[in-house]
């Protein structure tokens, strides 16, 4: 685990990405889907933030908005995505990425400052172009390198991401590489123009478990070497525990709990986070059935009334049906949106099985500290 995790105060490092009150909806044949309902999220320099949640909770859409990759039927209703960077003259500048024209966003920000690694390495490389060319592309676009310098750098990057025999692989087409290799190439592409922020959209979901760990370690290693800030989008809490400094738990287009990795894993407050943690298998899981959160996420075609999670929440209070809970602060870094934290709420503790399990996990973790 990296030292950065000890940082208790998020303002110790400079904020590099600040998403404020983001609200996005999609026009579909069935109607308007209100997919992102006021998301706030910060990323500080050199840190790692993980966004977790079920499929359809809006994790990817939030980050696609940062990259300007939203589908054409998406509308940003409100919000800002403030990105702070050092410009060509060495001065600090802040822009709202949502307000930039597409062309300017692509020319000056995508790839060069904010890069992204996608979920499925099998489909995210152009099948008709050699990987060398694909890696050099952003260097030509952003760094104005000549061919020779670009090739030298591409070979360097291939080695950095752990591809042996880089010279030969440079001329290979994607289909000649295995899934893990391709994901390394995608990472090399993302790094090729020296970005500040790396967004990883479930970078290991499509890979098998042994490769997963290696890719995660690779990203962490590179993060330290290059001083990157990383956003992980994932539904794998194992990944989160391994890499994240801060965790944002998303549910139905909202962030329901945010805190540093210890707070989320050892003192979670939101019943949804409890559910997620209970649903994660560990070595002691001896029950025949693995716990799963009952029901399914709400359909955002209809605006949920009250707390969107209430219907699936065994601890739901009467007020959950009527009003949406605000974010309650638990510690300087830890917030959760549940009425259970209201002073008037009855005292509800997390399920005893989860308490036992978290205690086990903590004991396990202490061995490594």
């Amino acid at each position, binding site marked *: 685990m990296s030292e950065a995790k000890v940082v208790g105060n998020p303002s110790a490092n400079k904020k590099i990405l600040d998403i404020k009150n983001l609200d996005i909806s999609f026009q579909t044949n069935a109607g308007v889907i209100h997919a992102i309902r006021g998301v706030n999220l910060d990323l500080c320099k050199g840190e790692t933030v993980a966004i977790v949640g079920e499929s359809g909770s809006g994790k990817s859409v939030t980050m696609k908005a940062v*990259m*300007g*990759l939203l589908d*054409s039927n998406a509308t940003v209703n409100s919000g800002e995505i403030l990105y702070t960077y050092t410009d060509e003259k060495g001065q600090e500048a802040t822009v709202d990425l949502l307000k930039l024209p*597409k*062309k300017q966003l*692509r*020319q000056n*920000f*995508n*790839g*060069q400052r904010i*890069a*992204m690694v*996608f*979920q*499925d390495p099998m*489909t*995210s*490389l*152009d*099948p*008709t*172009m*050699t990987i060398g060319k694909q890696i050099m*592309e*952003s260097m030509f*676009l*952003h760094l104005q390198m000549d061919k020779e310098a670009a090739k030298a750098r591409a070979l360097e990057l291939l080695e950095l991401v752990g591809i042996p025999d880089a010279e030969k692989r440079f001329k290979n*087409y994607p*289909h*000649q590489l295995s899934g893990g290799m391709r994901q390394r190439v*995608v990472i090399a*592409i*993302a790094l*090729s*123009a020296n970005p500040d922020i790396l967004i990883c959209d479930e970078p290991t979901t499509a890979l098998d478990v042994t490769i997963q760990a290696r890719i995660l370690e690779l990203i962490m290693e590179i993060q330290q070497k290059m001083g990157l800030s990383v956003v992980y989008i994932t539904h794998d809490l194992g990944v989160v525990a391994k890499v994240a400094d801060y965790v944002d738990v998303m549910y139905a287009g909202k962030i329901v709990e945010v805190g540093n990795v210890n707070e989320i894993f050892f003192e979670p407050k939101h019943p949804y986070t409890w559910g997620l943690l209970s649903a994660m298998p560990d070595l002691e899981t001896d029950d025949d059935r693995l716990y799963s959160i009952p029901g399914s996420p709400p359909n955002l075609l209809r605006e949920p009334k009250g707390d969107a999670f209430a219907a699936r929440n065994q601890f739901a209070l009467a007020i959950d049906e009527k009003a949406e809970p605000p974010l309650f602060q638990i510690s300087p870094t830890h917030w959760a949106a549940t009425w259970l934290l209201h002073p008037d709420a009855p005292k509800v503790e997390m399920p005893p099985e989860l308490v036992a399990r978290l205690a086990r996990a903590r004991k396990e973790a202490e061995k490594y500290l």
Partner: protein
Amino acid sequence: MTKYILKRVGMAFLTLLIITFLLFLLVRIMPGNPFPSERMSADQIANKRAEMGLDNPILVQFVDYIRKLLLEGDFGNGTSLYYGVPINTVLSSCMSNSFRIGGLAILIGTALGLILGITAALHKGKFLDGFCTVLSIIGVCVPSYVFLIFLQYYFSFKIPFFPYFFDAKRFLFSSIIPSLSLSLFTLSTIARFTRNEMVEVMDSDYVRLAESKGMYGNSLVRRHVLRNALIPIVTVLAPLIVDLLTGALVVEKIYGINGIGKLMVDAITGEGIDYNYVLALGILYSTLYIGIMLVVDILYGILDPRIRVQGKAGDA
């Protein structure tokens, strides 16, 4: 790659030989015979049959035919159609008419089809997309000869600009109307395919990745979209090309073009079936078809690296 091509050429040649044999059999099994019995006496017919070697065993006839074809490049003479004139002479002039008009139609169809398809894909969901889609549906539905008659009526009769009929002396000018009408189907098919392929490719993960690299606009389309979208289009294009090159029966008939489509009809429906013409045209069609499929396969290999290495031991 060379080995792959050689292998494919060898296979093509073998296929052609088998097809020729089957054609040879079929022509002889076909009802009817090459001689108009009303105008020839039984003796005359028997003489003719002996002269043409039609009484020999069929395998002997076939070997003779193949030998003559391969060694001398000679398709023989017509038996009832254009009696006594070597087929090669007639065929080459008909072929040049059909090929030139067909070729022009392919050029027009492919070029306009690509433009239409790309325009539609780049404006997906907007007015231009709908407009191009409607155009291409009309193009697929309206038979080429209907369009030909329409063009003839408006641009030869109402506005007497283009000629009514094909005229080999004013080749280019008089082939505009038939080429245009022949190209309609190709144009529409290509347009629809290009649009769908491009839309699919533009939705793909690798285009997302290219965008996240900072690519946009024309260079994105040129470098990542077009090539990937064109691969399947090459496959559709191949049979369309053969269709156009081998002439269109009705269009050639209506516009008075001496092409191979018309020749085929005449060879079958004339006074008696002309064995040699039917065979020669059958072989020509097959050669074209196999040849173009071969070119497409090789082109595929050039466009798509995934196919290129299949000849080698690759980890595809």
